[in-house]
């Protein structure tokens, strides 16, 4: 029996992944605090005099 679902090509699947990322960012924008542009960190951590504020998979 012929499948009723068409198998998307790589471009379509890549675009689907990008669409999922866009959806995630929209969802995130609705529930996260707005970004404060005045609180943005300096462009580069090295030489900034600030401890890194990010999180990493090695953290508990």
């Amino acid at each position: 029996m012929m499948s009723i679902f068409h198998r998307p090509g790589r471009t379509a699947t890549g675009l689907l992944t990008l669409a999922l990322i866009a959806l995630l960012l929209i969802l995130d924008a609705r529930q996260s605090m707005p970004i404060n542009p005045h609180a943005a960190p300096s462009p580069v951590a090295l030489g900034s005099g600030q401890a890194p504020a990010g999180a990493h998979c090695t953290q508990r």
Partner: protein
Amino acid sequence: MTAANRPPIRAIRSALTLFSLAVIGFTFAMAGPRAALLMLIGLGFGLVLEGLRFGFTGPWRRMIQARDGRGLLAQFVAIGLCALVAFPLLAAFPDELYGAHAPVGIAMLAAAFVFGATMQIVLGCGSGVLVNAGSGNLMAVLALLGFVVGSFFGTLHLDWWTGLGSLPVHTLQGSFGESAGLWVTLTGLAALAILVARLSRPGQRLPSPRLWLAAILVAALAVLNLVVAGQSWGIVYGLGLWGAKAGQAAGMDVLATAFWSAPDHAERLQQSLLTDVTSLTNIGIIIGAFVAMRWRRDPGPQVPRGSTPGRLGIALSGLILGYSARIAFGCNVGAYFSGIATGSFHGWAWFAAAFAGSALALHARPRVLQWLSLSAAATPGGSIRP
């Protein structure tokens, strides 16, 4: 679409360039220069990993099954080059830059073993799943969704697993001193490289120029990640955060859990993903892989759809990858690459455990795929990534 109907490759490439610039510009406008730089670095990772076909899972498989050590040697070169710059930087700027340092423990070792085994079943690791999903591999999209759920679930049980027994965090710098720590790392990598070269078949002992270039570029991007973000290249935290955000959107009180109620994690959960380091580079990797795939004249074929049990198996494998990576304090990137390159003992322990898991799983892989009614070509890394 027939060849005659396809848009000219030049138009596609112009559109891809504009799209990439728009993503960088959007990130800059929304979250500032550091976020834009991290997105750019992530894009670079995606372009290099997909464009130059630099991976982690495939080279391990080829070393174990075909005694082809070229890809694995390229990994050691990349880690060594990164360490050569990262060690002095971490020593000179200890308040601004952090390495990927984590404790060795019972659950950590077991989880690394499980991760190594699972990555050979699906032929995809932390970075590989992102790259394959971005480059249009249908099964990798399923694995990525599973990875997100798994790494979030891992955060819910991390304390319990770590409580089974764990050593304090040890680094080579802390044990041997700053300079000697670097030399121990480079000597260890060189010893492994010699062992791999000796075990490899003649003609499969020297990485190709493409792999040399990729290793240098990956190392340079990893150093840039450290310099810009103040922390090493990682993947799993961002994916766990995406899962936590999704859980929150579904009504789950994520902030009430032990992991996400900790101040650092609670802040990440409440802030935009565009301010999270690993989310930015992860998104960049996916976009970079898409751009690299579509840049080619022929993007290549899609993997077979696979059976329903097969698709469920891939999603479940993604979940196991995410869960085990979280318990192991990182995947092939955060633990193996960044851990070793910044002097963490747990990076070496992760590599040993995951490689043993890979070796075991490769023996069982044909039977597992048969059980899932899945052809090898239908796995995320089956027919696209070498």
